[in-house]
């Protein structure tokens, strides 16, 4: 039966996907909550001209992209080859 393998592969993908989604939610809503409840922190300037708020905002954008890169890299390296192997089996 090839099914347990395809199911475990699906479970592995969902685990990674859900962890990364949770990270994304924490990152973005953390930023929003800081804006709502700690304006002085975000107004603080790290160097003159660069406030913590601007830095974090840009970081949220860059990190979002990094998370998609992490997922894609995992999927290309582990998920796709495993799937290919499964499909390659004569029974599927």
């Amino acid at each position: 039966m090839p099914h347990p393998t395809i199911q475990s592969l699906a479970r592995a993908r969902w685990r990674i996907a859900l962890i990364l989604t949770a990270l994304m939610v924490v990152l973005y809503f953390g930023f929003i909550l800081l804006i709502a409840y700690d304006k002085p922190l975000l107004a603080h300037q790290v160097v003159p001209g660069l406030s913590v708020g601007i830095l974090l905002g840009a970081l949220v954008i860059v990190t979002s992209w990094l998370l998609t890169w992490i997922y894609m890299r995992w999927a290309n390296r582990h998920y796709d080859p495993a799937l290919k192997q499964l499909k390659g089996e004569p029974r599927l």
Partner: protein
Amino acid sequence: MPVLPSDLQATTTSLGHANPVAIACFFVFIAVTLGITWWAARRTRTTEEFYAAGRTIKAGQNGLALAGDYMSAASFLGIAGLVSTSGFDGLIYSTGWLVGWPVVLFLIAEPLRNLGKYTFADVVALNRRPGPVRVAAALGTLSTVVFYLIAQMVGAGGLIKLMFGLSYETAIVLVGIAMIAYVLFGGMLATTWVQIVKAVLLLAGAFVLAVLVLARFGMNPVNLFRAAAAQYGDKVLAPGGLVSKPLDTISLGMALMFGTAGLPHILMRFYTVPDAATARRSVFYATGLIGGFYLLTFILGFGAMVLVGPAAITAIDKGGNMAAPLLAELLGGTPFLGFIAAVAFATILAVVAGLTLSGAAAISHDLWVNVVRKGTANQGEQLRVARVATLFLGAVAVTLGITFKGQNVAFMVSLAFAIAASANFPALILSIFWRRTTGAGAVASMLTGTVVTLVLIYLSPTVQVDILKHEHAVFPLKNPAIITIPLSFLAGILVSLLSGQHASSDERLRRTEEQMVSGH
């Protein structure tokens, strides 16, 4: 409000007058896109070609097309304008518009590609009562599409009037005709390439403009921010009045984050690629392009604040929408203004074309073929219905665009996102993740999401206070997503449990789960 006397505008900007470069760029764009449409029309003979470009689009191309579908004039002109007048607060929007994309990648893109054919309803209806599910999904799709279209059309009319000096009605009709031509003759293939051309133009325009700005500040954004703080105070670098009610902002954030994953014209793009791995790569590219674009608009906004000045910007357009065009004129003269104006026009055209195609797919593929004809319609009939639906939606868009002339329709974009997040997203997630979701449950989730969102938006301050000029609003939040998303999930889960046994056999469910992974 305006610090400059208003007659000074005539001497400082050529906005609102016929600009030869703008008109030339605009005609080149129309000629190129109609050429693409003519080329695509000869390759669009089957429904798979009409709705899904024959599933031949490559990852990089689809990444650009996704970005093109998503980066509307509102995000280019609106965010730059918001930053130019209020500084940091504009960044809250930039981040919000981006953070939905990773969610699309992690949760939606691959299962959608593996399970569906042309619309997201294909996935929700799989193994469930197809009739009612498709009707409810079409309702969610069409509500999202129509509100989004109204906002785009009204914005288009106003912008084109301001930038080309055309009348509002002429502008709307022009947009309508070009958009119908792309979709009607060229289907998804033409629409995809129009998005790609537009995305490249928009990114190039924003990039060049940002470089021109930074060149004045030693190529260092921090110098630019420092100059802004020196002129307008440190407050422009810090959160201001935009987030006075945290709950409102969180609710808007939820609508943006989960609404992106429920936008029918975005979801439809995942069917244009050959497989799930390509869909995955295309979201990675799209996220990078869109994120980079929002970082650029932030530079443009601060550039406009320092170099043009908020007073001069709001003197021309109260909403601040002309910040980027004015900046272009200041840095690159009238020809560059013309180029940016034509890019803004191309942006609107491409977005309405994508919306219309996804609406036409809901009418023809979901409602006509699968509900009315119960899947018995042949290719020729399916294509005819899809084209009639395109004409119909195009006419609706032009009519509504003219009807809502001069109205405040900015809230309709957030309405579209709220419906997408509350009606389409929960049903899609439930049907992908929870095998006990029944047809009745999916319908309950989609109807609850659509209806409650519409009612709460009507009762919200946006409509009651801003538009109807009442003293108070019954519902305190401007965006209802924080209520409607959980409610829609709850309705879907409760009704699924109450409607009892799953209609499908375990064997079929197991096959579906395999298909979600392997694609067949």
